[in-house]
């Protein structure tokens, strides 16, 4: 979780891919690079390097869950002893229905939970059952909760720079 010193043009490519993505043109790497002072080959190299270095988790078509019918998003939270966290996180993260799994700082006394995992699904019952599976894996004595999404007010790629992209409200599709 440390900062990485990247060549500035690569950093700019990463920011652009996170915020707006590639332009939808026939030569998107050339067109993206042009606005960042890179040629097409350099831009492609930068994208490959960012993936290789792990700066980019995933590069590709980013589909919106809700629009595809994955309308139930269950944030599952657990209060695990810290010594169990690494092993539990790896186990839970490997479950096929878990799309995100991470440890977060607790905020006692109001927020005791330190392990989070996200389950996206089409049906509430299925997501709830999958949550129960995670509970059984970790031990049902572990304090746990599931917070299911209702409305989505905003979702877009991270811009990392507060002055960057102006945002206008959409219809709430995400």
């Amino acid at each position: 979780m440390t900062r990485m010193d990247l060549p500035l043009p690569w950093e700019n490519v990463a920011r652009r891919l996170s915020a707006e993505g590639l332009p939808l043109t026939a030569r998107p790497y050339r067109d993206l690079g042009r606005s960042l002072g890179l040629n097409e080959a350099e831009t492609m190299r930068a994208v490959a390097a960012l993936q290789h270095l792990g700066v980019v988790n995933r590069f590709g078509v980013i589909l919106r869950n809700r629009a595809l019918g994955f309308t139930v998003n269950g944030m599952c939270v657990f209060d695990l002893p810290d010594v169990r966290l690494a092993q539990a996180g790896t186990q839970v993260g490997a479950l096929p229905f878990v799309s995100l799994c991470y440890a977060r700082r607790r905020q006692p006394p109001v927020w005791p939970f330190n392990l989070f995992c996200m389950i996206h699904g089409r049906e509430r019952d299925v997501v709830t059952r999958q949550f129960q599976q995670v509970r059984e894996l970790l031990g049902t004595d572990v304090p746990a909760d599931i917070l299911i999404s209702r409305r989505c007010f905003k979702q877009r790629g991270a811009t990392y720079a507060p002055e960057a992209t102006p945002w206008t409200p959409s219809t709430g599709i995400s």
Partner: protein
Amino acid sequence: MNAAAWGCLAPFERDFPIHPRPFAEIGRRLGMTEAQVLEMMRQGVAQGVVARVGATLRPHVLGDSTLAALAVPPERLSEVAALVSAFDAVNHNYEREGHYNLWFVVTAASVAEVTAVLEAIERQTGLQPLDLPITTAFHIDLGLRR
């Protein structure tokens, strides 16, 4: 196009071609022309199915972020949600079931900027946000398995 039809793009959620003509390359694999693939992408963006052809970044590499939550009285939820969404540093903002019912991610260039946004939200709403930064990422992959 219905939800199932977009499934043809699933292989390109990862392993997107790094190729001078990536949409031609995708077309080659799907039996479509480059122009048809580009048209499908543009339609996807217009319909809100495709967020972008881009990247999700590993947290805390280019900046800092945190997951924050507010316990908002139900009658104030729309107002507070709009106020939170108006911050450019907020990229996700969801209502969830539970006492803490508004959950949002704040991303900025530094910890100090993230903190400043949370303080501004607290000042403007009179509600104290939870501040739950990631300590370890075990698995981050929003490509959905279908």
